[in-house]
């Protein structure tokens, strides 16, 4: 099972909405959304589609970033307004066991996911009292191999144990991707089960850092992942060439898309995300940077879902 960690912004939610509508990810993918906006409009739209498509998604109730960051009740109150089973409760653990235990009790939550760093000491009662609650059913731990006592403790609990990796190598500037053609991205999908994990997580093809807003880029990059012959996931960066000013973002997209489309067609790569890219390119239409991001995320999730479903 793959648990992509995504901010619950418009294009992240549209990505998952479209995949659910295509019936492409049900049974193998459960997204984890970290809301960064105070408003719920985009979450509301997604909720209806997820519910109809029998897709559940974790919602981090005490996000680490954004307008309502911290241990509050904003998203807890929101969760209560929704029928159970579609948005599932998730918490970021940061020595805040009391807060999470109280929230679970006060809001009558079940089936909770706890997301933590690997620096947690399992013998610390603040953590262990939380971890052993019946209402806590899953853990998501960043780079868990580095804390064996935590890993061993969590395995013994016989709950879901998900590893979180951050394979996307962010560059200082988008234009820095230009000389980087392709490299291996991830092979967790091949090994997670043999290594005793119930699932794996990453940030798809986005950087893990949260950046509010964003300015017009000097370069447009299309990040496409694909399975190689050994079923490893590789990533190719298709980067625009004229990156000396912020003008003409449409032209930069045209340059990056030409490279991506030529590569995909030559290598017979195709799925619904890539088809959308081909259509924009063939029609010489610039769809906006949000859609470019959506296509990249969607392609990656389709690659992983396709692999998991075909095993």
């Amino acid at each position, binding site marked *: 099972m793959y648990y992509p960690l995504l901010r619950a912004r418009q294009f992240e939610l549209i990505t998952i909405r479209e995949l659910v509508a295509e019936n492409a990810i049900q049974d193998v993918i459960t997204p984890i959304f970290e809301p960064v906006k105070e408003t719920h409009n985009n979450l509301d739209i997604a909720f209806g589609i997820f519910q109809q498509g029998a897709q559940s998604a974790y919602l981090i109730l005490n996000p680490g970033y954004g307008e309502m960051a911290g241990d509050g009740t904003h998203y807890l109150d929101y969760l209560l307004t929704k029928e159970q089973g579609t948005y599932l409760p998730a918490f970021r653990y940061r020595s805040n066991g009391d807060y999470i235990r109280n929230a679970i009790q006060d809001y009558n939550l079940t089936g909770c996911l706890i997301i933590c760093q690997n620096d947690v000491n399992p013998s610390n009662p603040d953590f262990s009292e939380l971890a052993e609650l019946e209402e806590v059913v899953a853990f998501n731990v960043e780079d868990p191999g580095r804390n064996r006592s935590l890993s061993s403790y969590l395995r013994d609990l016989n709950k879901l144990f998900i590893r979180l990796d951050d394979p996307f190598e962010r560059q200082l500037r988008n234009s820095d991707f230009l000389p980087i053609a392709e490299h291996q991205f991830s092979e967790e999908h091949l090994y997670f089960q043999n290594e005793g994990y119930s699932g794996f997580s990453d940030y798809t093809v986005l950087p893990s850092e949260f950046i509010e807003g964003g300015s017009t880029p000097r370069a447009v990059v299309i990040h496409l992942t694909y399975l190689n012959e050994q079923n490893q996931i590789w990533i190719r960066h298709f980067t625009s060439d004229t990156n000396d000013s912020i003008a*003409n973002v*449409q032209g930069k*997209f045209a340059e990056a898309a030409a490279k991506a489309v030529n590569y995909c067609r030559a290598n017979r790569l195709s799925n619904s995300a890539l088809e959308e890219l081909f259509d924009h390119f063939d*029609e*010489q*239409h*610039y769809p906006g940077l949000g859609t470019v991001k959506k296509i990249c995320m969607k392609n990656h999730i389709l690659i992983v879902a396709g692999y998991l479903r075909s095993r």
Partner: protein
Amino acid sequence: MSSTRTFSPNQLRDYSSLFSRSAVKEWMKGNLSSIDFKISRYDQNWYSKTKRTYIDYLKFIYSVLENQYQNEYILKNSFLNDWLIKEMGESNSELYSEFRIGNAIADLVMFNGISRAFEIKTELDSDKRLNSQLDQYRKVFNEIFLIVPVSKIKEYETYDSNVGIICFDILSSKKFQLVRPATRSNHIDAESIMHIFHTNEYKEIVTYYYGQLPEVTSFNQFEVCKGLISEIPQNELNQLFINKMKSRAGNYDLSARYYKEFNQLSLALRMNMKNRKHLFSILKAPLKV
């Protein structure tokens, strides 16, 4: 408390961080901790019977900086208040702070009947990049001015004689004086202005001048419009460019009289009247100390 006190350079530098975009963005959200921090560090006893709001404290800091630490903020703000706002009052003008042209960023630019760029060089600035900056400005602006300290006039006079020079002495009663006027040029480089325009702006210019926009796709519209725009005669293109920059207008409420300490910040953050009112309503709160 009077601003004739002497302050250490570190303290002045620390004070100057209050007049920054990031500080003001926090204030707009109601977070005044950056100001509380300076008060608790330096000015625990800063009180007077009549002056006890955040805005009073900031005005005090501004006056200290104006007297003892003339950084770029103070200079730009004074130039706005003493020179540009007067000129704005007389005509329909548009001002920008930090206006990007190619690889250079002009400190202040003004569009009314003509386009003008102002480049500030304080005592602390080097002139290393000046030639390449001027090369960029010449491609777009009708007049270019250097704003330099009195002590450096001779040095800067050796640059391009078409460039105007304004000298400053911020502590004198007439802070800015014209040393040499700028020679006006109507040369305008189509390639350079294409990189300034937003997409809808260059499309509107083509549509306006040629009566219609040719059939373009989002992939080729930039190149097609650039070709057409480069064929517009220089004088007309200059006017179209100025009009377009004026129509980007923010509805600023710059004032040489009220809250004049904050004009440059309003401009840099492109604050409209409503934002400005909101900011001052927050800063009018009594000090918490």
